[in-house]
């Protein structure tokens, strides 16, 4: 919705040049920042009052050009061409001026007043680059301001210059790709001077992190550290919350208040069984935020790129897959940056196999109950198993229904020491999503599950839940699961956290969980929970991103079949061994 009477400023730039950090610095907002190309996949908006004028900022997804090869580029181009903002704020990575200028030249051709933020000046200086911003201003004929968005350097000056935005006077001889590349190169050579080449910390770290032999072992070592941090270090907080909810539930039950059974055994037990895992989820997000903001995650993408190509994907698929460890919904949306439609579709279909944070409570619960002492190992196995199934599925899909070649160019951002505020902001944005779900879907489901596990008979065994569970249970009898587990899986279709919530309500005390299955059946259940039907929200976004019911149905049927077959095999093999 456009706000009339305001100045509209479109922020445009290459991926990972700090547009969102700049938006936050100008507007005081708290949008998600990454050191990761593709953090912004949709328009973000923020408003600031500058010189008593309301200025409305639109942060467009990072793009390399206005050619509209990818969905990101199409969103940005459509906005600039159709909506015609009052000002373009072109954010440029000073450490990579020549490449960024290609887009700048295209923006100049639009004839819209423009200001350039020469961002990441600190990175450029570290690389021994000296940039004559005055000369750049003269050549392009638009104001150029040096900034370090993350440190809020140059922000006041930038706000001031927005009121002096000009239409560029530069003319590119021929409006084609080669001509623009040549012009960009000529401009860069005039304004950039490089001091004596020294080996930077980035070079030193990259030599090892992207080493042909050491890259993957180091990645696995970091992943193990992440999982121990998530499970072992968060344990006392989990215990505290667990005790808190148990005490609260008992107090309400003994209070004699109206609906005390619904509140204690339904709402408190249901929500509590999910919220108890908030420390695990928060710690996982803290660890991932550190890896992401430091720039290491992109190196992980780089070393995994070769493997990805073997499975018919590209390194660009890695970014949505890693985002999938948090939540599959933004992960599916993040595939918009993939140019090749077939690769994009494949990445969407396999994304639900990446273990989202909603599945972590199921893992922590079952691993603690059935695999005490090896819980971290089991959880790491599940995450890696999900990745293996995703890659194998990608290969299968690319060899059969979506054949074709894949290629990819990856931009490597500089290393940065993550700031505590950035880590906490990023973690909060992601955890908030989980909390909102707890206060909406999970709260509603706790009432529904309580009702159908209590009525009509008053006991679990004669409840609607038992009836439904027992009707569906024969389908799962080859896997040996009792109706309680089957019913939990059915409710888990709404949201995966609801599996744990349902078991909490059915059992009353989750320590009774070990009575429901044997060790092989428990591991089979974990694998099934990892792979089966995507949750409702993910299915909705798969439908909207693919624009096809056929592919949405494929994601459901394929996921369920793979989950069923692999769980069956695992349970039977382990049954022979144990």
């Amino acid at each position: 919705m456009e706000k009339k009477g305001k100045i509209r400023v479109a922020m445009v730039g290459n991926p990972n040049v700090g547009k969102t950090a700049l938006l936050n610095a100008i507007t005081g907002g708290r949008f998600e920042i990454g050191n990761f190309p593709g953090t912004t996949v949709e328009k973000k908006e923020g408003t600031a009052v500058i010189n008593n004028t309301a200025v409305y900022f639109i942060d467009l997804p990072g793009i390399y050009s206005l050619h509209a090869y990818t969905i990101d580029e199409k969103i940005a181009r459509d906005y600039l061409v159709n909506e015609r903002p009052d000002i373009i704020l072109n954010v440029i990575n000073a450490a990579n001026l020549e490449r960024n200028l290609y887009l700048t030249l295209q923006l100049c051709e639009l004839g819209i007043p423009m200001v350039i933020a020469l961002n990441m000046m600190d990175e450029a200086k570290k690389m021994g680059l000296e940039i004559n911003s005055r000369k750049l201003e003269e050549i392009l004929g638009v104001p150029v301001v040096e900034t370090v968005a993350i440190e809020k350097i140059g922000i006041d000056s930038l706000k001031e210059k927005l009121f002096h935005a000009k239409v560029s006077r530069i003319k590119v001889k021929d409006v084609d790709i080669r001509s623009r590349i040549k012009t960009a190169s000529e401009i860069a050579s005039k304004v950039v001077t490089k001091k004596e080449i020294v080996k930077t910390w980035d070079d030193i770290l990259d030599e090892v992190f992207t080493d042909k032999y050491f890259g993957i072992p180091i990645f696995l070592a970091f992943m193990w550290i992440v999982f121990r941090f998530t499970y072992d270090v968060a344990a006392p907080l989990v215990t505290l919350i667990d005790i808190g909810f148990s005490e609260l539930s008992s107090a309400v039950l003994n209070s004699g208040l109206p609906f005390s059974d619904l509140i204690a055994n339904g709402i408190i037990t249901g929500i509590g069984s999910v919220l108890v895992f908030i420390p695990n989820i928060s710690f996982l997000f803290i660890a991932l935020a550190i890896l992401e903001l430091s720039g290491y995650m992109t190196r992980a993408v780089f070393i995994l790129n070769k493997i990805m190509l073997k499975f018919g994907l590209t390194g660009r698929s890695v970014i949505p897959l890693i985002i999938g460890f948090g939540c599959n919904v933004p992960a599916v949306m993040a595939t918009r940056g993939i140019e090749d439609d077939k690769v994009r579709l494949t990445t969407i279909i396999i994304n639900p196999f990446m273990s989202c944070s909603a599945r972590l409570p199921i893992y922590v619960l079952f691993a603690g109950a059935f695999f005490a002492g090896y819980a971290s190992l089991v959880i790491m196995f599940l995450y890696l198993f999900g990745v293996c199934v995703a890659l194998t599925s990608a290969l299968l899909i690319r060899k059969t229904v979506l054949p074709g070649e894949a290629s990819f160019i990856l931009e490597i951002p500089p290393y940065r020491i993550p700031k505590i505020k950035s880590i906490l902001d990023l973690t909060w944005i992601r955890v908030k999503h989980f909390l909102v779900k707890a206060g909406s879907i999970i709260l509603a489901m706790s009432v529904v599950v309580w009702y159908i596990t209590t009525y009509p008979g008053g006991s679990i065994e004669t409840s609607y839940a038992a009836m439904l569970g027992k009707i569906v249970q024969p389908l799962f009898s080859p896997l040996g699961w009792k109706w309680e587990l089957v019913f939990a899986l059915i409710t888990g279709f709404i949201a995966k956290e609801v599996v744990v919530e349902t078991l909490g309500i059915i059992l009353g005390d989750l320590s009774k969980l070990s009575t429901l299955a044997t060790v092989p059946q428990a591991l089979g259940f974990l694998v099934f929970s990892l792979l089966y039907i995507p949750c409702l929200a993910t299915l909705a976004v798969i439908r909207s991103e693919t624009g096809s019911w056929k592919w949405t149905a494929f994601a459901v049927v394929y996921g369920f079949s793979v989950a069923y077959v692999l769980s069956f095999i695992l349970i039977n093999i382990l049954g022979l061994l144990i």
Partner: protein
Amino acid sequence: MIELAVAVLFTLTSFFEFFRSPMDSFVLAVIAALYFKGCFSRRGSYIIVASLLAVVFAILTTLVIIANYANSLILGEEFKFKLELGIIGYLSLIFLKNRHRYVQGKIV
């Protein structure tokens, strides 16, 4: 050469840890291998990354010990101290403190 001595120490630690936690052992083995590579190829970058990984792992180990202690306190159980061998990673702080020796990517 102190780097080589530390590489051997991490190798031994990895071996002892294997029977308790194969994945902890794996992390220690990666650190040892990076130290060896740094020593034999005389490339400081490997020493720096090995030291970073070792210190991060040592911090994790310390947090795990503190978390175990806190958990026993909350549950009112007796705390059973279990030595986590990853703690030797703090030794690597000496390399990070003297990182100027490796800053050009070579062992000076």
